[in-house]
């Protein structure tokens, strides 16, 4: 012990392991922090504790469609969006069109999942800052979404509901009614959340001016999703590179404006998520209105999936940012190479850049505000 003391006294610095077993690293992330007092001098993220060989599995599978359940397990908080990205990639390779009804169901599911995922992200962010209660309020709402998902797909977390060329089965007969009801009851809850958390002075003090990510750095580090939008860049793949039928809907891209402090701070990233939930509600409403009532969702599923030779990089907007699948096909029934470009992986890479000079308590806020899911980081 005396050794340690003299060591600390000499260097004036202490290296501390935050994680892999730490309450607010959102999973098994290990951050090596060099501390001077409580001020962080250096951050070294260590990942890989949750590596499950997604890419290797995908290459070993004898069928493209067997990969879908594994994509669920990448970002288990927004499984629908992960599937969506993968199926559009394979559909582009096969050059098939999907029926109208399927597209609408996909969009509704993806947007509901986005709300569910943001609720979890926001709740966990509050939890990191010591506010326990908003976390559970968010969970109550999230449960309602999961109930709707369960009624339709049968699962609550890992759905495997999207299929290449269609959906695995049709939605539950109550789907439209349930979703409409949810949309109606959820709007006031956003206001309540704003009262409880977003507008709270203590919360603002903890998040404003913390972990500032300027626009240039964000782009250079490849940030996307709410992290990039929090820095004031109006970039949303649903608008800028529309996939599926997102070009039919009328919605806005909320961006950070530096209302409470500097542009690109934790509060901006947080509020972008809150406002995105409102926009998602708008998309859901429009999609519910436009959704055709009739149509077989399974008829478009090809019996044999064997794309021609070629490769493509298909990207989609998940709640965490740009999810890209780089798929190479060599004419066989299994993909030659599947690389998943996970947004959390990229965002975690920029952590050292924005955490220098912060306090430990700020570190928690920064990790919470970039909203990582370790399942996606490690794949």
């Amino acid at each position, binding site marked *: *012990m005396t050794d340690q003391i003299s060591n600390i006294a000499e260097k004036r610095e*202490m290296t*501390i392991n935050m994680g892999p077993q*730490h*309450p*607010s690293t959102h999973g098994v992330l290990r951050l090596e922090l060099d501390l001077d007092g*409580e001020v962080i001098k250096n951050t070294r993220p260590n990942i890989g504790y949750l590596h499950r060989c997604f890419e290797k599995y995908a290459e070993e599978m004898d069928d493209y469609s067997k990969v879908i359940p594994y994509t669920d397990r990448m970002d288990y908080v927004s499984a629908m969006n992960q599937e969506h990205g993968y199926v559009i990639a394979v559909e582009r390779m096969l050059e098939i069109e999907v029926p109208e009804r399927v597209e609408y169901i996909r969009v509704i599911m993806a947007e509901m999942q986005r709300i569910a995922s943001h609720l979890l992200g926001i709740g966990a962010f*509050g*939890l*990191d*800052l*010591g*506010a*326990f*209660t908003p976390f*559970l*309020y968010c969970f*109550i709402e999230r449960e309602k979404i999961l109930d709707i998902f369960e009624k339709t797909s049968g699962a609550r977390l890992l759905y495997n509901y999207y299929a290449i060329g269609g959906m695995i089965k049709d939605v539950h007969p109550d789907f439209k009614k349930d979703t409409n009801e949810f949309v109606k009851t959820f709007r006031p809850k956003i206001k309540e959340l704003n009262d*409880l*958390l977003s507008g*709270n002075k*203590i*919360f603002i*003090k*903890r998040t404003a001016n913390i972990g500032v990510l300027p626009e240039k750095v964000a782009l250079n580090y490849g940030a996307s999703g709410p992290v990039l939008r929090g820095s004031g860049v109006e970039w949303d793949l649903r608008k800028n590179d529309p996939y599926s039928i997102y070009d039919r809907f009328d919605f806005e891209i909320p961006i950070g404006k530096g209302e409470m402090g500097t542009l690109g701070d934790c509060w901006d990233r947080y509020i972008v998520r809150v406002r995105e939930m409102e926009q998602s509600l708008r998309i859901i409403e429009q999609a519910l209105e436009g959704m055709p009532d009739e149509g077989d969702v399974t008829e478009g599923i090809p019996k044999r999936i064997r794309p021609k030779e070629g490769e493509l990089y298909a990207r989609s907007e998940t709640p965490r940012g740009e999810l890209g699948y780089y798929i190479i096909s060599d004419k066989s029934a299994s993909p030659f190479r599947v690389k998943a470009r996970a947004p959390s992986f990229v965002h975690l890479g920029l952590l050292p850049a924005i955490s220098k000079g912060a*306090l*430990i*308590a*700020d570190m*928690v806020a920064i990790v919470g505000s970039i909203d990582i899911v370790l399942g996606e980081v490690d794949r």
Partner: protein
Amino acid sequence: MINFAANTTYTLPILVHAAVPLTIIVVYALVAIWGERKVAGFIQDRLGPMHVGRWHGWAQSIADLLKLLQKEDIVPKDASRFLFKFAPFMMFAASYAAFAVIPFSSGYIGSNINIGVFYLLAVTSLLTLSIIMAAWASNNKWSLLGGMRSAAQMVSYEVPTIATVLTVIVVAGSLNLMTITEMQAGNDILGFLPNWLIFQNPFLIVAFIIFFISILAEAHRVPFDLPESESELVAGYQTEYSGIRWAMFMLAEYADMLLLSLLGAVLFFGGWNSPFGDFMSGPFWEFFWFMLKGLLLVFVMMWIRWTLPRYRVDQLMHICWGILIPLSFINLVLVALWEVIF
């Protein structure tokens, strides 16, 4: 020097005097831990403990206590063994000893000394020492950070606490808690309001707010629970503790919370005086009113805990040194002026 073992005439009353607050603390702690979980549950649209003991899980904390008693007592290999084992008991002793001067009713006070407030504030300072002791002895970096935070926080917040207590003393003119309580009897203000100090002087309302914020910080409650903030420092100074030693920390913490709330009740809300004059008075009712006032303050603390996020360590310091301390001293002057003028 009194030989306790030989002199039963002294030992027995001392033991009784010691047993009364201890019973109150233990019973209160069991109820409060259950109550806190219930409050948290209701606030979060849950139910809280429902299973143990059938009726709303009333026996949950007893079950927890039994579980903690059975747990393995782990001492880390590189810990400083004696200090590690000793710290929780010292912490409990500190908050327990302070109960000696709390007037539970007109008929019962542990020790009616004339420097009661002074003694109480002095003894509770030991809490800081025991927390640092626990933090340092654990030989854990998170504990150390928690201990350092705690030391800084408690030392700082003692200043506004003492300054506001001083304000009350200026008005009351006594350091004896019994005397302070007795002078708040009756319902004379505006014809119906009780003669509580908070109603006697408008600046004492400000003093109470400062006092309340300070005791939140002293008792490590949200938004000032930095020493043990679970999402930053794992569990702060308690990280390495388990079993009964951990339970001791818990007990001390809840006791501290009650102690400071009761102090607040004595200083601002008339102690054991009934709010309805002579109605429902007498030693037992006095005890009831006193505990009710204390527990109400405890409830507000819980309510705040389950609403707010926590401050950062530098903001906490800023609130103390930059806002509360100047404000409390200005307030002290204003209160004194008011007393001189009216």
